[in-house]
């Protein structure tokens, strides 16, 4: 009985390490294809459209809403201490440092990451990937690489747009509705946020999140079980694993970056 438990533990460990190794090999293969022609620019543009442009609406809308709520909550708390003038700093810092990159990554995972995994998994199920191999086209080069790269490119831009819309939402609520002085709001925000500590950090975070979501979604789809259940498992797995990984990495990056 005890032996069986240890056996299970050993099996799990071996599976985990095998997965890590496969992911590393997969990432290596994506990287090699990325730095070598054919570049597949047309496919990349198409994927940036699917991931970036089509996520724009949800990202901007969520950004404005999150900013507005932050403005409202921050004002209620700050005005208790007579510090409503720091509203811009509170909204700006929390958005740029944490909420922007993390929420954008979670939204994009749900909106585009799941779709990416489902698409690749169903291509696998319907043997389209094998069809590509028959024509001696590497599916990693033709299908996976454009998707992963598009995720890497789109994420920082969506993040920056999310933050801009959220700053606007916070401004509307704080200045137009609650009566904080507009100049004070902008000045306290611009004084609090620095390039080295905050803006560079947010770009680094969104780049890393983009790479993570791109790799997790494509790997899950690529290694799915070729059945209908496999496609749905790949989609669910992508959202769950990517979300947890984003939150974990967010802590690690913040700790290493040193706030």
């Amino acid at each position, binding site marked *: 009985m005890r032996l069986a438990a240890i056996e299970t533990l050993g099996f799990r460990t071996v599976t985990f390490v095998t997965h890590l190794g496969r992911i590393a090999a997969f990432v290596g293969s994506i990287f090699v294809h990325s730095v070598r022609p054919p570049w597949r620019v047309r496919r990349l543009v198409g994927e940036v459209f699917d991931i970036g442009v089509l996520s724009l609406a949800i990202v901007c809308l969520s950004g404005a809403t999150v900013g507005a709520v932050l403005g409202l909550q921050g004002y209620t708390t700050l005005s208790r201490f007579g510090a409503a003038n720091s509203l811009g700093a509170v909204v*700006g810092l929390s958005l740029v440092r944490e909420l922007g990159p993390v929420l954008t990554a979670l939204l994009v995972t749900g909106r585009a990451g799941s779709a990416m995994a489902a698409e690749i998994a169903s291509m696998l199920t319907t043997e389209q990937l094998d069809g590509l191999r028959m024509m001696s086209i590497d599916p990693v080069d033709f299908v996976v690489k454009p998707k992963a790269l598009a995720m890497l490119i789109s994420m920082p*831009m969506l993040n*920056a747009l999310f*933050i801009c819309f959220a700053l606007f939402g916070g401004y509307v609520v704080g200045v137009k509705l609650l009566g904080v002085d507009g100049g004070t709001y902008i000045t306290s925000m611009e*004084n609090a*946020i620095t*390039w080295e500590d905050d803006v560079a950090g947010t770009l680094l975070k969104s780049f890393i999140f983009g790479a993570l979501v791109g790799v997790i979604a494509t790997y899950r789809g690529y290694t799915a079980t070729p059945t209908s259940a496999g496609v749905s498992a790949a989609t669910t797995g992508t959202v769950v694993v990517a979300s947890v990984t984003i939150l974990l990495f967010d802590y690690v990056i913040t700790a290493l970056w040193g706030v």
Partner: protein
Amino acid sequence: MQPSATRDLIVGLFVAAGLAAIGYLSIQVGGLSYKGPGGLRLYATFDEIGGLKTRAPVEIAGVTVGQVVTIGLDPSMRARVTIDVDPSLKLPTDTSAGIRTSGLLGDQFIELEPGAEDQTLTSGEEIAMTESALSIERLIGKFVHDSGVESK
């Protein structure tokens, strides 16, 4: 999928908007806090700068005319502050610099008080007269220490 040219245009617009947003965050929000003209570099040495930080404003009569660029330690272990101010200002050579606090607990900034000399400061020159930051802890410490000695 949409026609290729339209799609390319939309992707191009998206990328341009994304880059503009990154640029806005980097330059406007994360950039320098003083937006006026700069170029006149002056140095000032203080015994104590308190909580002065880089990018803190430099003011004359309450008007922001520049900002703190660097803060370092000079060989005699005093704080050496570089400030960047509007070059159109004609600051007399006997201008003095003091570190002030906005409000009771606000941020610290440098206040310049122009003197009366005819000659003006040029870039790279040193502001000779400085007034250090007022440290409340030090003041209280001094007060407690002094009154303690007297009572004995």
